[in-house]
């Protein structure tokens, strides 16, 4: 399952670090953060609880960049 979210991240290098932090989260197969478009695409592992995973991603990313925000689905 692949879902795209609108995100807000101010610094490009932070976006990179967030992408790496998000990849380590349980239930995440792959994450792509497009800083230019302020979008994040998450490929979930089979059977993962999407809401939980997204919350975990948010937590991991705010550790890196406290202003990181995830909004509702873009697509």
């Amino acid at each position: 399952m692949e879902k795209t979210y609108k995100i807000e991240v101010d610094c490009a290098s932070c976006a990179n670090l967030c992408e790496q932090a998000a990849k380590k989260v349980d239930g995440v197969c792959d994450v792509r953060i497009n800083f230019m478009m302020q979008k994040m695409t998450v490929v979930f592992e089979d059977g993962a609880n999407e809401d939980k995973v997204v919350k975990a991603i948010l937590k991991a990313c705010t550790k890196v960049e406290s202003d990181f925000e995830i909004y509702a689905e873009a697509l």
Partner: protein
Amino acid sequence: MNRKQKKILTRIIISLCLTIVLNIVKTYGVLRFALFLLTYLVIGYDILRKALRGIINGRVFDENFLMAIATVGAFGLAVYSGSGDYNEAVAVMLFYQTGELFQSCAVGKSRKNIASLMDIRPDSVHIEKDGSLVCAEASTIEIGTVITVKPGEKIAIDGVVEEGESSLDTKALTGEAMPVWVKAGDEALSGCINIGSALKIRTTKRFEDSTVSKILELVENASGRKSRAEKFISKFSMVYTPTVCILALCLAVFPPLFMWVFMGVAPWSVWLYRALTFLVISCPCALVISIPLSFFASIGGASREGILIKGSNYIESLSRVGSVAFDKTGTLTKGEFAVKDTVPYNTDKDRLMYFASMAEFSSTHPIAVSILKAYSKKGDISNVKIIEEHGGMGVTAVVDETPCAVGNAKLMEKLGIEIPDISPSLAAVHVAIGGEYAGYILIADEIKENAISMVSALSKLGIKKTAMLTGDNRKTAEEIAKKLGIDTVISELLPSGKVEALEKIMKSTPKNKTTVYAGDGINDAPVLARSDVGIAMGALGSDSAIEAADIVIMDDDPKKIVKAICIARKCMNIVRQNIVFSLFIKFSCLALASVGIADMRLGIFADVGVMVIAVLNSMRALKATRD
């Protein structure tokens, strides 16, 4: 400016005012300290909080931490020395926040600029309900619904014209303002502007599958496909940051240590200050933001010209092009056959064409179509009887009670009719009337008007190796190649042979240069995939072409290939400029900071100023070069 930015601006203004007031109105001692502290907190509370969070989460050495230390240190120094000069701390924080705001606005504005270029898709449509027009959201429209597009409006969903006649402006899709006339039964693509009268269109696709949505998606995702330059910058900043931190630490510790041991002085605060300035300057944000922005701007600018680039990496590859290979039919030539000449034998041109067109009137073969186009007089079709198609050879028919045959040499051979010896350089359609040879019609595929100027433009850009790959016969191919100025011709290729031919060309291209193939996308998919950069032409309305290629040119103008290369080169130039400029300024400032010439204010300029300049430079990529 968004909400966050407005908030910070307010805080900046408030603390600026407070600082000015506090400098005019003399205060002393604890009151003075408290008031300055208040001002400081107004402007810097979030930085302090972020710094604390950073430490807790293990990210100690980030900008917030050093800003916090620098300013707290400045406060401390002022208290310690009893000078009451708290301005330094507040000034630094003020500078920093202003700089960050500038940065954020610059990037945000550029993004908006680029995104608005792509504002080619309306979100709502008009549908008829109970006799009047109502607005509806385009994403809810089912296939088969009839939408009304008024003059001046953009079409939101692909469909077929149900009612009305008008002309459509395809500029948003192809980059050319060439109007297309449509009437009932014609396809009307989303993204086009209706410039005539109102049209009723029955949708054939859903909103998200329509052409314009697909293009938007492509462009948006293109910046996700990273180029080598972007990947390098990511890796670079990963290594760079810890390195710089360690260097800063050394700068903070070793010189004062050295001086303490050997000279007995301990200017810790001086070196600490320098180390902090050092860290502020070193932030690689300028590079990390401006490089993707350049690619993003190029992709946006290119899409306005009707050139869709599917990834930043293709921009890089395209800029290093060494050889260009072309498909012939449909790419370099119009793909439509046209009558070049008629050579009658024992009869006149008119009679020759009359019999040929009558016999071919019902055929849909491109050659038949060209004959029918060339012969303007319409004969009485009821005079044509017993039409027989001979597959791969031609047709025979009885016209005006006379048997005639129209076809190639093979047909004439079959019927036992002798044909004159003509060189097979052009497709010749032989005609026999009443069992006797009557002459031949020469059919040729016309070269596209811009094809010749394209080849010379390529050579002006330094791309001298051009090749033509075609399944057509050798003589025809060589003649066309000569006219165009293309030096390598590989003809009579079977579809499978095209890939091999391309590979040969790729082998002969120098290692650091790429090979580009331009074709029509539909039957060239494997060749497009094999080349370094595959360009599909004339992709308007063709989904498969968009899928198969790396770069899609919506119309079929060969000059766009040249434009694409120019855009790519411009982008890479800007990227290189930004890298050189940023690194040069950064390293100079770092050197200055280490010896104490640069103070915190210069440091912030080196960080923010460089970034803003780099971002502005990136925006130049939006303008596609004028040729």
